[in-house]
């Protein structure tokens, strides 16, 4: 599905006056969700930065239907909606918009349950690699070596591969995306909207506040993640995986930028040793290898 910027809606789905930090990747992501799905989406938001971003009742900075729900419950709430759409003859697409903590940790059972039942909804994990809303604590998606307020000497465990775990649920559509590549993300969302069943999209969302970089560099850092191969863009239909264009060329290791280009711009990695750096590189290579087994 090729999408051109000129053809996209110019409506504002994230309004001025929202309460995100400057350079927030979640507002970017939500804007793209609006551009892709418009007013069709019924967004289900668990506790996280995106609850705050909406601003204070009775106003909201998000011009879409939004249901805020308990931290662990978002997939289940969306499933409930999906299951009565037909019987109640209601339109709209239930879209979960959940952080990495809500997705990979506390809400993981809900997510897995909805996916196993193949409930008809789109689940987006907006992954800023930590619990940002509560002040930058580690999640199971925080990378090895990263400083967070609960891993002050650097995290000692690797992140888990949630997109692959979701792929192995054998859902009809799994994809990764990045806030640096809106057209890729939007086209994946649009494709997901045409598929019946459970669709999972994992959106990489570098956060200036939590990762310690300048708020003007959000998109740059997100791009670097792809260019060094640390974030791999793919989609999988019927659990057959294929790389999508921004990542295609990085299949060739030599085309990737040096890992340092990505690491050195982030304050959370400032204490990383040379050993840690090599480990990081190995992790990237292993992830590619693992991923390619599904192509």
């Amino acid at each position, binding site marked *: 599905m090729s999408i051109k910027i000129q053809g996209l809606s110019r409506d504002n789905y994230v309004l001025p006056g929202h309460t995100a930090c400057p350079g927030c990747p979640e507002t970017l992501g939500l804007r793209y969700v609006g551009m892709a799905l418009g*007013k069709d989406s*019924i967004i*289900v938001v668990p506790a996280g930065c995106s*609850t*705050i971003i*909406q*601003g*204070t*009742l009775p106003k*909201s900075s*998000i*011009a*879409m*239907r*939004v*249901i*805020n*729900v*308990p931290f*662990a*419950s978002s997939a*289940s*709430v*969306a*499933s*409930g*909606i999906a*299951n*009565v*759409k037909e*019987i*109640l003859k*209601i*339109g*709209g697409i*239930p879209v979960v918009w959940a952080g990495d903590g809500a997705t990979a940790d506390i809400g993981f*059972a*809900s997510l*897995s*349950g909805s996916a*196993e*039942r193949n409930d008809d909804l789109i689940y987006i994990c907006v992954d800023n690699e930590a619990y940002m809303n509560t002040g930058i604590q580690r999640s199971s998606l925080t990378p090895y070596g990263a400083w967070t307020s609960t891993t002050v000497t650097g995290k000692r465990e690797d992140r888990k591969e949630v997109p692959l775990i979701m792929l192995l649920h054998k859902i009809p559509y799994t994809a990764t995306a990045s806030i640096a590549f809106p057209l890729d993300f939007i086209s994946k969302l649009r494709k997901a909207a045409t598929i019946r069943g459970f669709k999972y999209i994992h959106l990489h969302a570098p956060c200036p506040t939590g990762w310690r970089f300048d708020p003007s560099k959000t998109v740059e850092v997100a791009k670097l993640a792809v260019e060094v191969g640390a974030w791999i863009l793919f989609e999988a239909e019927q659990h057959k995986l294929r790389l999508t264009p921004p990542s295609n060329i990085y299949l060739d290791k030599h085309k990737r930028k040096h890992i340092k280009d990505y690491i050195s711009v982030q304050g959370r990695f400032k204490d990383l040793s040379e050993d840690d750096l090599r480990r990081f590189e190995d992790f990237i290579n292993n992830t590619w290898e693992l991923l390619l087994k599904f192509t």
Partner: protein
Amino acid sequence: MVTKVLTGNYAVAEAVRLSNVDLITAYPITPQTTIVERLSEFVDMKLIKARLMRVESEFAALAAAYGAALCGARAFTATSSHGLLFAHEMLWWVAGSRVPMVLAVVTRTVGPPWNIWSEHTDFMGQRDCGWLMALAENNQEILDTTIQLYRITEDEEVYLPGMLGFDGFLLSHTSEPVDIPDEDVIKSFLKPRSQPYNMCSDNILTMGNLSNAEDVATMRYDIHKSMENAKEVIKEVDREYEKLTGRSYGGLTECYRCDDSKYLIVAMGGWVGTMKDVCDELRSNGYDVGVLKVRFFRPFPEEDLTKAMSSVKGVLVFDKSVSLGSLGHIHSEVLARTYGLSNKVVVRGVIAGLAGVDVNPNDIRGIILKFIGDVEEGGYIGNTSEWFLGR
């Protein structure tokens, strides 16, 4: 109307069948399980139009029912004990969202150690969440109250979710004859689904974003006011239901031979039936005893209770639940209503039947007679609290 011999759990299932439910979410736990088993049969055999979601936890069961209800569905789920506790966070969210739905709670002890018998602590532990809470005495009341709760929760004066509790095994797995009203009768009794707002309508709404303190406090107060409104609605619905089926439960409480009583027994749930029998027997032996059955615990029937206590010497409260470190739950509610009574009333709370400890008519008679004896001998002895441990 037909009469069938049904367990309490099957009585709930029949009520759900009659209530034109759109979504049922199901997760097994003893002693609730046969409710969702029976409902899944109904769904698979196309006896009802509802969708059934076989979810991965009680938390998900509540969450999915909530999502559906937000979008206009009449929803139902059921659980017990650990399942109810697991879903506790969602209970708050559903009530705070003002979304009507109905939950059956088959009461069961909370571990450790594991124990599947009935006590009421699981149910009573949810008393602060903003749900209407009724506890049934027998299987007929289980069926009738489930249906009534759909009407009450969807009344615009109320717009709150409701839970119906009843004793595990003692009712859930015990068969009794139950009158099942005709579908047409219930159809006319239950109006089409009504709720305060719909998240799947074309309106761009936001539910539950950040709010300032005053707004949240006001919303809490609104729930409290709706609880107060619910008192009249519950009575009205009960009267209307009586016209259609011939059965009434007195609204929030049932006063059994308590009009001219000197000693009032207060309790909730299945054992109230036993207490009524003991009451009859004591009456025939010259004791002026009556039973006040608390049918709805939330909203709490303050007015009924105050009235019933205003002319008695003693009130004996039986609780099948306890707030550890304090009192039985009904006992403390009763005590809070003795202030300001013009008569000096002695109150005793008895915590009994915990973890399914058997409390038979002899035990109940003994406890009542001892209480009457203590008051008659000692005059005004204030408030006392006792535990009956069955040994």
